[in-house]
């Protein structure tokens, strides 16, 4: 597609429920990122993939959070036993190359998760 696509756009989950958020990056993009954005805050890094390899997961807040990109394209962020503090927008982003300087990161529109 033309841009990074995320689904679902909106998700309401009951506390304790598992959720899965999907990201379709721009075709051919090597790097894929997940960010968490709380209301009124900037995006916070969660995890990074280079192709299918998860090279950095230092931002995942707990072992309830799990991400995968098995074929190096589509990625899924899974949150187990959701809690109210997990309520946020989850942004997926991709870039053509690795590294940061000059390697523009393109964001999707986010998946808005509300845990009730």
């Amino acid at each position, binding site marked *: 597609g033309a841009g990074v696509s995320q689904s679902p756009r909106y998700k309401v989950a009951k506390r304790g429920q598992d959720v899965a958020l999907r990201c379709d990056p721009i075709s051919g993009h090597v790097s894929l990122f997940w960010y968490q954005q709380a209301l*009124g805050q*900037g995006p916070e890094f969660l995890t990074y993939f280079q192709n299918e390899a998860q090279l*950095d997961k*230092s931002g995942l807040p707990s072992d309830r959070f799990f991400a995968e990109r098995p074929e190096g394209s589509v990625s899924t962020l899974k949150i187990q036993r959701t809690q109210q503090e997990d309520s946020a927008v989850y*942004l997926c*982003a991709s870039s053509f190359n690795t590294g940061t300087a*000059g390697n523009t990161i393109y964001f999707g*529109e986010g998946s808005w998760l509300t845990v009730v």
Partner: protein
Amino acid sequence: GESVGLHLPTLSVQEGDNSIINCAYSNSASDYFIWYKQESGKGPQFIIDIRSNMDKRQGQRVTVLLNKTVKHLSLQIAATQPGDSAVYFCAEPHHSNDMRFGAGTRLTVKP
């Protein structure tokens, strides 16, 4: 710890005026900075970037200024339009591949 931060959380300007959004950073080793625009309900959108070997870079109606001496970054928007209303973030490399964002400045353009 090292962080990216913004001087003002909100900025209100009159349509047609110039806007200046400021950002302070503390990691003197950062060699690359990006400004993003985020409209309500959307993901951040790349506006302009600058490398640390430059002190100014211009785009269409936007200019980014970098002052490495005081570790300060600014985004100038010329002839601000209603469509410029959004939250603006500066970002710098965090680890080798991801970016760290500040909390953002909300720009409101008054007609």
